[in-house]
């Protein structure tokens, strides 16, 4: 675990402890399980976003893709009687197709990723709204897919804790993503391309291919979370479903140490970033803070956390003699990381 991840973990623990102290119901199994469920759903698309950010891109269409694919998924299984397993794979394929398109447009056509995915954001949401004629797509009352529901939105009792299956999905996704990013050759190429695309090309890395595959992974994972979220809300108003989720995803990734300049970030960090954001949401409701202050509290806690981290890092940097060589050696690196953005 990197130093930055550790700071984040500490921040989460501190926030959690404070909340638990003020309202012990925070620690109720039910509440923790609900929060975990949110973390599961949001974590998957945050990891998706992280892949793109690490190769130096950005994906703004996450929320719209979640809306469009969610609508399609529900439509397929509820109105068109497609078998849900087939529908699931179709949706994943859809996400992969969208990702491929974004990747190709940014690499082969050399359009800025911000522009490509902004257009995606606009187009997919429009498509979702047009498709349903702005109506809400949902299971309605009584429609039931017991197996699918259990798999996607159910919980399994593990040692007394109702573990949401979205968390299981997140653990699997994060595990594989960790292996790929931090241990595999391919992951290394992601970081290399994100940091210095030209040098990567000189080293014989097919940087276009690497970039495209980051978008593809992002699309596929986003599709997965679209299905989970659709099964959680069971209804999708295409005009608002998932809107702003790209900001959540980017925020989680950035909190987790990704730099928007590319080449940096860790999977553990992204997951921790997601957890922090969700715990903060939970906190506002549990402490009875006026809902209007919901966002403000989130912002304030994040800012204080980051400031505190920075304060300690800076202090350590300023007094390296006191902490000896080791501290001095590590300080510039982590400073640079913050600096780099």
């Amino acid at each position: 675990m990197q130093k930055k991840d550790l700071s984040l973990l500490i921040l989460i623990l501190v926030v959690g402890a404070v909340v638990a102290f003020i309202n012990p119901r925070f620690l109720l199994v039910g509440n923790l399980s609900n929060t975990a469920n949110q973390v599961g759903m949001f974590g998957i698309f945050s990891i998706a976003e992280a892949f793109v950010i690490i190769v130096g891109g950005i994906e703004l269409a996450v929320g719209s893709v979640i809306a469009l694919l969610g609508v399609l998924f529900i439509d397929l299984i509820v109105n068109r009687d497609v078998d849900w397993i087939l529908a699931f794979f179709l949706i994943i394929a859809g996400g992969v197709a969208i990702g491929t398109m974004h990747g190709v447009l940014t690499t082969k056509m050399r359009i800025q990723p911000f522009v490509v995915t902004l257009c995606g954001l606009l187009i997919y949401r429009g498509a979702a709204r047009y498709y349903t004629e702005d109506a809400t797509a949902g299971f309605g009352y009584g429609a039931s897919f017991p197996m699918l529901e259990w798999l996607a939105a159910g919980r399994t009792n593990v040692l007394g804790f109702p573990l949401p299956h979205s968390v299981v999905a997140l653990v699997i996704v994060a595990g594989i993503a960790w292996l790929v990013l931090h241990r595999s050759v391919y992951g290394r190429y992601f970081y290399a391309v994100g940091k210095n695309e030209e040098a990567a090309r000189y080293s014989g890395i097919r940087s276009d291919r690497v970039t495209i595959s980051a978008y593809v992974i992002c699309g596929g994972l986003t599709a997965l979370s679209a299905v989970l979220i659709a099964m959680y809300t069971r209804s999708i108003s295409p005009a608002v479903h998932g809107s702003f989720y790209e900001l959540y995803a980017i925020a989680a990734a950035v909190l987790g140490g990704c730099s928007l300049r590319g080449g940096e970030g860790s999977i553990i960090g992204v997951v921790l970033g997601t957890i922090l954001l969700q715990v903060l949401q939970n906190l506002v409701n549990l402490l009875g803070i006026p809902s209007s202050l919901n966002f403000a509290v989130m912002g304030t806690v994040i800012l204080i956390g980051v400031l505190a981290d920075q304060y300690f890092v800076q202090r350590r940097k300023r007094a390296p003699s006191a902490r000896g060589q080791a501290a001095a050696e590590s300080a510039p690196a982590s400073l640079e990381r913050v600096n780099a953005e």
Partner: protein
Amino acid sequence: MREPFLELIDIGKTYPGVVALDHVSLSVAPGEVIALLGENGAGKSTLMRVLGGVVAPSSGTVRIDGADRTGYTVTDAIAAGIAFVHQELNLFDNLDVAGNVFIGREPVFGGPLRLIDRGTLRAKVRPLIARLAADFAPDTPLAELSLAQRQLVEIIKALSLNARCVIMDEPTSSLTLSETERLMQVIAGLKADGVSVIFITHRLNEVVQCADRAVVLRDGRTVGTLTRGELNPAAMIRLMIGRDLRSLYVPPAAPPGNIVLDVVDAITSTYPSRAVSLQLRRGEILGLAGLVGSGRTELARAIFGVEPLLAGGISLDGEPVRISTPRAAIDRGIYLIPEDRKGCGLLLDFPIAENISLPDLASYASLGLVDRSRETDNADRQRERLKIRATDVKMQVGTLSGGNQQKVVLAKWLSMRPKVLIFDEPTRGIDVGAKQEIYDMLRRLADAGVAILMISSDMEEVIGVSDRIAVMHEGRISGFLARSEFSEHNVLQLAVGHSI
């Protein structure tokens, strides 16, 4: 001589407004060491980029093992056994040393997952590091290495390829004598193994030392080839610049004056237990020598206010000053010309003129608005004075050859009125002809009363240009040498910290 296996035939390359290469041919036989010489902008790097598959030639053929290659790319070059050390470093500062060395060729396990075998990776890098006696470990993050150390990493990367041909574009430009010596041994070793080496350098004695053949380019054309027996600096210079060169170095006009800059017990963060003191006088050129990583750059950065001084102080003209930002240093007349031109020296996408005017922009302005014609005029003057090869001062600096970029870095500061000038590797990558002009200029500046601190890894230059030499070893000054004590042996002895 064995049959050539790499042939560049009639290669031409044009950039907008520039003919970089004009029907150049070169063939390389196994085990041959070829030096590629020429002035800045002669087309050396471009030719090698063609061979390395980095740029596609406008005309001509690349032939490998007798087969003509079309659509030749980096991947093909790597597959054909060509390793390339680029002039501008191409490394990843988010990876460690081993990761950089084996990027694109990581040893893997785990079948289709292709997990990196980190143990093997490090084990493979370790002997290569030892071979160059570099002082970092396989898992040292690249971000912690100095420029010269990074250059060693690039060289290690090329060696690790087990290539048939290694191209090195100015591998020694920021290395000191001992690393250069070691590199020469490595090249000899490669040669013995039948590996060909093409290297580009502006340090001619390296050529004499190890090349079988020197090919000289001028204005994108081959102007001659010198074989082993003909290799002497005078002949090479004549081919390169088309005339003879008088002695590079000019003696000072007057003895140095008062102390201008006084550094007392300065401590920087890399060597927290070592204090540095030195004094710099009016009109003096103080050479600062030392091995890679000895802390010279860091000292310069501390004086210039880029890095914090942990302890100690600086006085200027006898008055203690506190310098915490480069702006403060510049306002007091202390200028630093940094060694890392890509990172700190230049804005590569900016035009030449805007780079040159940047430190002193206010003086080109009236009412806060930049007078562009004055800016351009001055840039044109500097271009002529330093013979910067560019069609126009509106060209982006990034498209210039390495040496010409370095000249732009110098030009930035020379139109201003300094009191203390710190040059960090001022002639890195600069050709002999231009070196002479820069040395002349250094001397003129010194004679005009500027105090100059010249950090240099080029032993010849340190001895030739300096009035006095300070040598650093592991973060402290191991000794000063007066003119009468100047010798390679003395400098080296102080630099390595023990007698040799």
